[in-house]
């Protein structure tokens, strides 16, 4: 059964107020094409989560789609900071559940296994734990067997997880190459899973190396075939990040005014094809193609 659909239909699976686990880690494998579509649809009140936020998170926050963020950190690496996320936090414009990245991942892990909670040994004795206890998502406790100090973390079960992947078959069986950060747990914890794939292959391809399947088809709600759907972030073994565009975005996100100009120029009133044309089209994309040996 094919789960292939369009970006706009996939975006309709995300409702105002949903908790959405994001795909990217800083400047790698962000599901930009779907984030753009959510901005175009003016989705509101999202809770977004990731162990490390990337460009897609900054875009969603800057566009006003987000009411709450659950995270451990995030940046554009040396290109700069997540200006919209940081400003929204500074000004108290969004609710924040800020913890260590392992705490976010453990909370996904608990959700992925249907555990109501999970213990962790970090966070202890830091300024991170009190706000989490106050928010009712953590509590300090002792291991009932050995008496060791732990922090109990409440499971995360996102309404939807978004995953940008290199390869999938039409049924939805999805393969991710390279490191996967918190994708395994976030996707398995989510109620709905939206996959953006750079390439759609025949099912036999997947079934030849099923050890590489990260998400089995029956866990995928919708699959969208979106070449360069992660631009300007990197997709290992497919294309490198677009340093020029990342620098441009890092400048734009310093202020809401310049960010809004960025949205108007690259995101609003167009579609993914229009976006790719605006950032330089085929000529620009050709310069990003990954070297098969290096992976970037």
């Amino acid at each position, binding site marked *: 059964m094919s789960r292939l659909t369009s970006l706009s239909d996939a975006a309709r699976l995300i409702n105002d107020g949903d908790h959405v686990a994001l795909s990217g880690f800083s400047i790698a494998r962000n599901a930009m094409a779907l984030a753009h579509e959510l901005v175009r649809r003016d989705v509101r009140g999202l809770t977004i989560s990731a162990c490390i936020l990337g460009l897609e998170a900054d875009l969603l926050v800057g566009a006003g789609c987000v009411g709450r963020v659950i995270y451990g950190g995030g940046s554009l690496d040396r290109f700069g900071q997540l200006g919209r996320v940081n400003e929204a936090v500074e000004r108290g414009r969004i609710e924040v559940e800020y913890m260590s990245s392992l705490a976010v991942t453990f909370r996904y892990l608990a959700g992925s296994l249907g555990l109501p909670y999970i213990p962790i040994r970090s966070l202890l004795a830091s300024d991170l734990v009190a706000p989490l206890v106050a928010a009712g998502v953590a509590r300090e406790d002792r291991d009932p067997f050995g008496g060791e100090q732990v922090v109990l973390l409440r499971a995360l079960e996102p309404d939807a997880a978004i995953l940008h992947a290199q390869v999938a078959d039409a049924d939805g069986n999805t393969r991710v190459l390279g*490191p996967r950060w918190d994708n395994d747990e976030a996707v398995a914890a989510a109620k709905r899973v939206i996959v953006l794939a750079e390439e759609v292959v025949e099912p036999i391809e997947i079934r030849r190396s099923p050890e590489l399947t990260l998400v089995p088809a029956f866990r995928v709600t919708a699959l969208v075939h979106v070449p360069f759907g992660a631009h300007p972030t990197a997709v290992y073994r497919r294309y490198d990040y677009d340093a020029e565009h990342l620098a441009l975005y890092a400048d734009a996100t310093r202020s809401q005014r310049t960010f809004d100009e960025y949205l108007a120029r690259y995101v609003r009133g167009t579609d993914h094809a229009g976006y790719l044309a605006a950032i330089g089209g085929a000529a620009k994309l050709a310069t990003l193609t990954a070297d098969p040996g290096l992976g970037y």
Partner: protein
Amino acid sequence: MTTTIESFTTSELMVVAGARELRDGELAFVGLGIPQLAAALAQRTHAPRLVVLNEIGLADPHPVAFGVGNADPRHWYGASFMGSFNDVMGKLLHRGLVDVGFLGALEVDAHGNANATQVPRVTGGIRRFGGGGGANDIASLARSTILIVRHERRKLVERLTHLTNPGFLDGPGARERGGLRGGGPRRVLTDKCVFGVDESTARLVVHSIHPGVTADDLREATGFALDVPKHVATTEPPSAEEIRLIREVIDPERRYTKSL
């Protein structure tokens, strides 16, 4: 015997000083920039079996180019293992197998506690940064940490804006009482000196001063009370071979080592 050379940048000295703190066979998290270059230098000198971990989900990369951060595939090249954040931060770090984390910080206090979250704005309010990511996990759970921070009064502070990454908290035994399994800081590396830790007080003490820096310079640039012993070692300058490796092999574009 090694020949030392006269002309080197402070960042080159810091790379060398950092490299010397890393031991052969250790499992290490190393931050972007100087810590990463220090690990690369250590692997090419006394620590060929030093294993670098990347929280993004991989182990033992052998980059042929330096990139912009953990998420840059340039830092993934040649890895022996690629998996998940949990494989590295859960099954290695939280499992208690990681020897050292070499981390930057926005602020460090006299007990080696660190802030990776936010600082006050001169205009009032706070300035938020990228956040600690896995730094709290590493500071809590790694067998030891090495901190790197620019040596300024506003960064080496009496009181942290936010205690993101626990050091020795308020003194000896506090980590154990707090339930922290990791060993805490073993060094703090700055552009003016190398700090060690006084076990009796769990406070930072000057381990060595960089060439050309005076005790007064240190006190002047340090925001917490610091007594500099009369007879304190000078940080050993780079050898000619270390400089050659940095300039020709590890950072040929001089991206991190041109100046501070």
